[in-house]
């Protein structure tokens, strides 16, 4: 079985400071990892994904994530946070399940960027 853990329910950061939202995973076989963002009263939007290759993945809105196989982590990062980055962030892992690839989502981390 595959699983995703987002150990922080909430992350607080000041505008202009770097931010990190943590994610660890557990899968059998190769992990395919995703980050999604959810703004209030909206559906989830894709940010970035890791499939293979370079461990540092760049995505939308200046976000990036680093895949670390030895630590089974895929932390989301941004060098300089904006107030508009405040949202709910979900990490997801995808792996083969009965012939299909169905993603498993973490519980989400609320990012609050203070002016």
């Amino acid at each position, binding site marked *: 079985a595959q699983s995703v853990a*987002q150990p922080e*329910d909430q992350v607080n950061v000041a505008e202009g400071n770097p931010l990190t939202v943590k994610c660890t995973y557990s899968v059998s076989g*190769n992990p*395919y990892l*995703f980050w*999604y963002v959810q703004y209030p*009263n*909206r*559906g*989830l*939007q*894709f940010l970035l*994904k890791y*499939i293979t290759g370079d461990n540092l993945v760049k995505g939308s809105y200046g976000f990036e994530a680093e895949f670390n196989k030895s630590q089974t982590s895929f932390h989301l990062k941004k060098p300089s946070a904006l107030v508009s980055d405040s949202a709910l962030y*979900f990490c997801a892992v*995808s*792996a*083969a399940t*009965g*012939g*299909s*690839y*169905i*993603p*498993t*989502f*973490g*519980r*989400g981390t609320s990012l609050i960027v203070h002016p």
Partner: protein
Amino acid sequence: IAGITQAPTSQILAAGRRMTLRCTQDMRHNAMYWYRQDLGLGLRLIHYSNTAGTTGKGEVPDGYSVSRANTDDFPLTLASAVPSQTSVYFCASSVSGLTSTDTQYFGPGTRLTVL
């Protein structure tokens, strides 16, 4: 381009009533999914469909049914609603559920309250 539409936006329902949540996509994606989002639990997969005419059970399928008569529509039915089905429901789609690298596209959600 509408993407994914869901209806209704919100609904208050008496326990025991039957309810169908509608989901339509115009991207000609093969795979579609239904999730429920509950505070502290993140997104949990209810049912999915890899292609028209096929469906599969997710993590929390009990009390829900789906059908996939064509590519565009993927309705979710609660045969006899119970208060524990109070949640926000998201429909999503991807090009192909058989591909591990698929990005999911989400609808705006339906907020359902069962009294």
